């Protein structure tokens, strides 16, 4: 065999390079030596199996396109070719595509992590925090792009615009998402919000993987504020959902969970207004009736009471809303509850005023006399004669009528038999 012409090293490596580049390969192996933070334009790591190891040069644009985070220990499938770097005579594999090998394994990993965290008590109902009814500061963590943030902001503005919203943008899928979410949770919690929303729209199992990351789960648990998760659509719960204080199914549902609806609050206010009125509702009627009686009873020294009652009545009339406003109120159970309270409120003043009204009537028989009745007094003692036992024939009596007195003598007395006593009294006086 004739001796071949010797090649230069460069020429030899170029031959190898051309040969390798012409041969696309599909390789499965375990990631090792992966450093997520690099300033290079590529990630340099190795793929290995039990016996061998090979260098990999993963361009950042390919990595970004794939959107699948890499970690040591992951089994991935890479498609591409080997290449040779002549300056060092080294060989490296250049993936054009890659994917996580065996999604089943990943699901198993997530399930194993879920079990581990459950065993630690991170999912215990007793650990979960209650949501405030009326939050004043709401932290929202999601991607600054995409529909989720708009769904959340729109829902919060529609339902409860009184709360301040603090927005913390982060990547929510692919490389860097898990660490970004952890950082956003920690940062958001330092602002002392009343509640934290952690949301994203729907996606594939791989898309949602950052929400099943162990560090994310622990960051959720570490938050001082309650965390509500809203990760869309995937039928599987993410681990974030399991450890969150409240799980909602979508970003919109998460926003609805943390604030009451404006209409609900307006209804509550209307209910309170009714609660305020009901005790006075009956009272107002009683005061009206008592005022009438007092006026008719010629109050004199009690004029001050009438003035006081009149002023209260005016305050009530001014304060109590119109019938139209009151028709808007609909909480029937509250009405029942407060009718009871109203009755209590009315009873005591009512008793006092009734008593006073009775006194007035006793003091002032003029009203009765004006209707044609008369009162008969003993002319000497000025005592009221209300029985035939108090007079005898020829006694002097005074008959008082509305406009004056009649002085007369008793002719005779006669005991009532079948007739009522009222009638017999009248007969006697006539």
């Amino acid at each position, binding site marked *: 065999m004739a001796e071949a012409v010797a090649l230069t090293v460069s020429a030899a490596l170029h031959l190898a390079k051309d040969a390798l580049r012409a041969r696309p390969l599909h390789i499965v192996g375990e990631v090792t030596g992966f450093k997520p933070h*690099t*300033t*290079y*334009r*590529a990630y*340099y790591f190795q793929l290995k199996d039990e016996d061998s190891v090979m*260098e990999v*040069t993963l361009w*950042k644009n390919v990595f970004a396109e794939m959107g699948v985070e890499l970690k040591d220990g992951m089994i991935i499938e890479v498609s591409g070719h080997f*290449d040779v*770097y002549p*300056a*060092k005579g*080294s060989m*490296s594999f*250049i993936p054009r595509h890659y994917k996580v090998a065996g999604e089943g394994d990943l699901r198993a990993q997530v399930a194993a992590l879920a079990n581990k965290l459950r065993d630690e008590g991170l999912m215990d109902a007793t650990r979960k925090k209650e949501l405030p*009814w*009326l939050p*004043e500061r709401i932290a929202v963590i999601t991607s*600054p*792009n995409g529909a989720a943030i708009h769904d959340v*902001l729109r829902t*919060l503005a529609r339902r409860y615009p*009184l709360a*301040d*919203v*603090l*927005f*913390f*943008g*982060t*990547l929510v899928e692919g490389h860097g998402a898990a660490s*970004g979410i952890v*950082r*956003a949770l920690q*940062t*958001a919690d330092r*602002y002392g919000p009343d509640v934290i929303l952690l949301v994203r729209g729907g996606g594939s199992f791989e898309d949602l993987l950052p929400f099943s990351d162990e560090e994310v789960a622990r960051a959720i648990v570490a938050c001082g504020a309650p965390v509500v998760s809203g990760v869309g659509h995937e039928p599987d719960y993410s681990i974030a959902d399991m450890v969150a204080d409240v799980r909602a199914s979508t970003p919109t549902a998460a926003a609805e969970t943390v604030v009451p609806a*404006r209409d609900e*609050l*307006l209804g*509550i*206010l209307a209910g*309170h*207004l009714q*609660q*305020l*009125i009901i*005790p*006075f509702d009956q009272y107002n009627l009683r005061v009206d009736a008592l005022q009438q009686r007092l006026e008719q009873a010629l109050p004199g020294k009690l004029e001050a009471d009438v003035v006081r009652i009149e002023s*209260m009545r005016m*305050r*009530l009339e001014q*304060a109590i*809303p119109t019938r139209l406003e009151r028709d808007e109120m609909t909480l029937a159970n509250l009405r029942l509850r*407060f009718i009871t*309270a109203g009755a*209590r*409120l009315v009873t005591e*003043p009512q008793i006092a005023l009734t008593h006073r009204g009775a006194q007035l009537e006793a003091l002032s028989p003029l009203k009765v006399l004006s209707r044609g009745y008369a009162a008969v007094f003993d002319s000497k003692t000025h005592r009221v004669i209300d029985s035939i036992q108090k007079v005898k024939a020829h006694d002097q009596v005074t008959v008082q009528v509305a406009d004056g007195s009649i002085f007369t003598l008793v002719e005779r007395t006669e005991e009532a038999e079948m007739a009522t006593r009222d009638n017999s009294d009248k007969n006697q006086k006539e």
Partner: protein
Amino acid sequence: MAEQTFAEGIAELEAIVHSLESGNLELEDSLTSYERGVTLIKELQTKLETAQQKVTTLLGDVDPAPVEGEEELMV
């Protein structure tokens, strides 16, 4: 004094309702409480109907702009 928040207003309103409910107030005090309650309700309704949500962005996109590697690439 800082302006009362909505939650504080609701809490005061509930206290007023409760005291009226108890029936322990003098009539004059009941009327005063009642008038305060109606004022509060009107204020809270106005707040709900006119509030504009305030949104503050405190953390943007966290993807840091990568610094271009100066070292020679292997390929």
